[in-house]
């Protein structure tokens, strides 16, 4: 019953947009037998998955199932935590990002990340968006102006903040701040966007805007979104992966996962029997 409600959105989207077969199947990220330990505790077990370019992949699963941890392995954000050990391969565009020759800084520039809680810097709106470009050494005000405007437009925020560029970013509303963070990530022109529950702290209207934006961004970016909200996964994603206790249980087209999951655990989670 509940599942049927969720799927109405999917059906509409599928019928109006291109069908799955027409979407390119170019593999952007290939993960092979990934294991991860926090000290002695293993958090991820043998995860292998292929994620496609210009598609939205959603990771779902109950709290503590490792979906966020897995997301953070994709741009090596776990490097910041002490005692993390990783075995396995994460290949992006044919290169293993955990090999010694990889420059983490340029990797992160290529793989942008949006966090659960919006985290604008205590700077102006303009400086937040320009931050990444300034890191790259761009000083020309005209170039920066152009990038800031383009990124804010992409993040569907330009019309709301174009007169407030010099105000502190923290004066924006919660939803605007999150879109600002998206704009900030877009400004360094990544190819992949990782989103860690990007709308979990937002109200329904702001959430709807973010979702709209995510679907919009799909045309240019490879998007991976972690979400607690199954309706959201159903609404926006092309592919859904279900994680449970550090294992990847099932992955497939969203429609298929939500209508006829192969694994019993997946079905139980989706129908709300646990989680």
């Amino acid at each position, binding site marked *: 019953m509940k599942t049927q409600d969720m799927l109405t959105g999917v059906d509409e989207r599928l019928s109006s947009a291109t069908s799955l077969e027409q979407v390119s199947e170019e593999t952007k990220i290939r993960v092979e037998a990934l294991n991860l330990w926090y000290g002695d505790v293993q958090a991820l077990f043998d995860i292998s998955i292929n994620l496609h370019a210009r598609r939205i992949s959603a990771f779902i699963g109950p709290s503590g199932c490792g979906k966020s941890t897995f997301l953070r392995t994709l741009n090596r954000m776990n490097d910041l935590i002490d005692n993390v050990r990783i075995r396995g391969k994460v290949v992006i565009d044919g290169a293993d990002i955990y090999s010694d020759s990889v420059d983490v800084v340029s990797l*992160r520039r290529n793989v942008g990340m949006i966090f659960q809680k919006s*985290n604008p*810097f205590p700077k102006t709106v303009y400086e937040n968006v320009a931050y990444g470009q300034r*890191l*790259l050494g761009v000083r020309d005000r005209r170039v920066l102006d152009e990038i800031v405007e383009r990124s804010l437009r992409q993040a569907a925020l330009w019309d709301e903040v174009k007169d407030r560029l010099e105000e502190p970013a923290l004066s924006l509303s919660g939803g605007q701040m999150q879109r600002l963070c998206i704009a*900030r990530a877009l400004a*360094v022109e990544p190819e992949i966007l990782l989103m860690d529950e990007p709308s979990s702290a937002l109200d329904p209207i702001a959430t709807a805007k973010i979702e709209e934006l995510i679907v919009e961004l799909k045309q240019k970016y490879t998007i991976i979104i972690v979400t607690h909200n199954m309706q959201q996964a159903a609404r926006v994603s092309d592919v859904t992966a279900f994680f449970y206790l550090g294992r990847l249980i099932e992955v497939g087209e969203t429609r298929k996962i939500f209508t006829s999951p192969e694994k019993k655990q997946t079905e139980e989670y989706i129908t709300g029997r646990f989680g």
Partner: protein
Amino acid sequence: MKHSVPRGDTYVWMTGGFLALCVIMITGMLLLIVVQGIGYFRPRPIDQFALQGDAEAETILGQVYSREDIPGDVAMTLGYDPAARPVRYLVRVGNRELFAQDFRWVNGPDVGMVTRPANAVCLERVEYGNAYGFVHSLRLGANRVIDSEIDAWDVFQKIHETLRGLLEQIKAREKDELGELNYQFEQHRLEVKALEYRLANGRIDSASYETRKTEIVAAMANLEQSLRLHQAALDSMRRIAREPVLVLRALGSSGEDLVDIPVASIVRAYKPNSMTATATLRFYASKVWEFLSDDPREANAEGGVFPAIFGTVMMVLLMTMVAVPFGVLAALYLREYTSGGAMVRIVRIAVNNLAGVPSIVFGMFGLGFFVYFVGGGIDALLYPERLPAPTYGTGGILWASLTLSLLTVPVVIVATEEALAAIPRGIREGSLALGATKWETIRRVVLPSATPGIMTGAILAMARGAGEVAPLMITGVVKLATEMPFDSHFPFFHLDRKFMHLGFHIYDIGFQTSNVEANIGMVYTTTLLLIGIILFLNMAAIMVRARLRERYRTAGF
């Protein structure tokens, strides 16, 4: 049913009571300082005491500075009735020409009659303390004498400003012109010493040494000549300025005495017993201005404290300029780059304990390390020709500031560490996820967000450092500095010079002079000023912090 006080109430009362006690003690102390400090500059009335009894009949003229009960046993030995609670007065009688002591105690029971003659006058002098008495006459020249008391006072008031200004001008010129000549003379002398040093080390041959030395010696002789001329000119000007004399009818121990006082040497003349309200206010304002802007006189007991204000502020700013960057960098390493092992914990404990080391220990370290080791090293390296006279190898404002910054750096470290710890992880991750390196993240995001916290550390450090005296006493503070650490000679800031400090000034006038009783008021006033300066510096820093906070406000997550 048992009705008792609700359980928690006891603790509310207890904690509240202790807070109230603290507040009372602090406000009490501040009130005492403010009341005593503010009252010091008021014009005190001049009382005339007619003494009688066993003592010889005598009339005393002076200002009452304090009044106290005579202790019982003392009263008994003096033959007074302790039951009548006799009092005694501390009277400033001044007139050092006539009395050995500026102050004297007058026992209440000996006093027959007290009057306040309206025409009694107090003269504050540049030297020899105050003079009390009545105007007798004004001698303008050998043949021009104004005899009438009223006329003499009128004319005196008209010419006093001018003559006083003239003497001040002479003093200023002495300082500027003679100071400049003396400075050049000293530079030449040092150059000769340098030449001798180089000759002794074989760096120049004796021929060029001789030629250069002859040149310098000639220049020095020239300087000496013009120095003498200047001095003579100024001396004759001074003689002229000092010619008009106010003759004062003073009350000596054996009746009336006439005392000649050059008008130009009088700082201030007033008749406190017949002053109008506006005159009182003007007097007060002029005293406060003198206190803030002038050099000290009379072994620091009179005049102003400007050099001490300057020294205190400059020392505090220097100290902050060193301690803050030092502490911030140390805290950054501790918080951002170490991984928190046993070693880090030990360092942290050591830093915290450093803040508890007695300040005199820092003073001794400063003396041994900065003054003798570093300063001595600089002298040996850069100023060998001046040895054994030290340049940097002796106490100075630089070494005092560095010593105090060692003392205050733990405060900055602790405050900065706390500020860094309070910065949300999300902000750092946001920056790193955009491809920033760790250092870029620290520089562009973490440090700006931590500035308000760092400012708090700086404020605490300033408050701590400005109030320290003990370490300064052995690293460069003096009772009276002839030269300020800042003047018009290159490089303008002379960090090797000794300096004056308000804290030490308080100690000096309160405990190191003969007239301790008399200086109590000055002690309070100077304390008030020191507290005011610390408060001012803190307020300025707090305002800067408030603005930064507004700018770097972080969301509450």
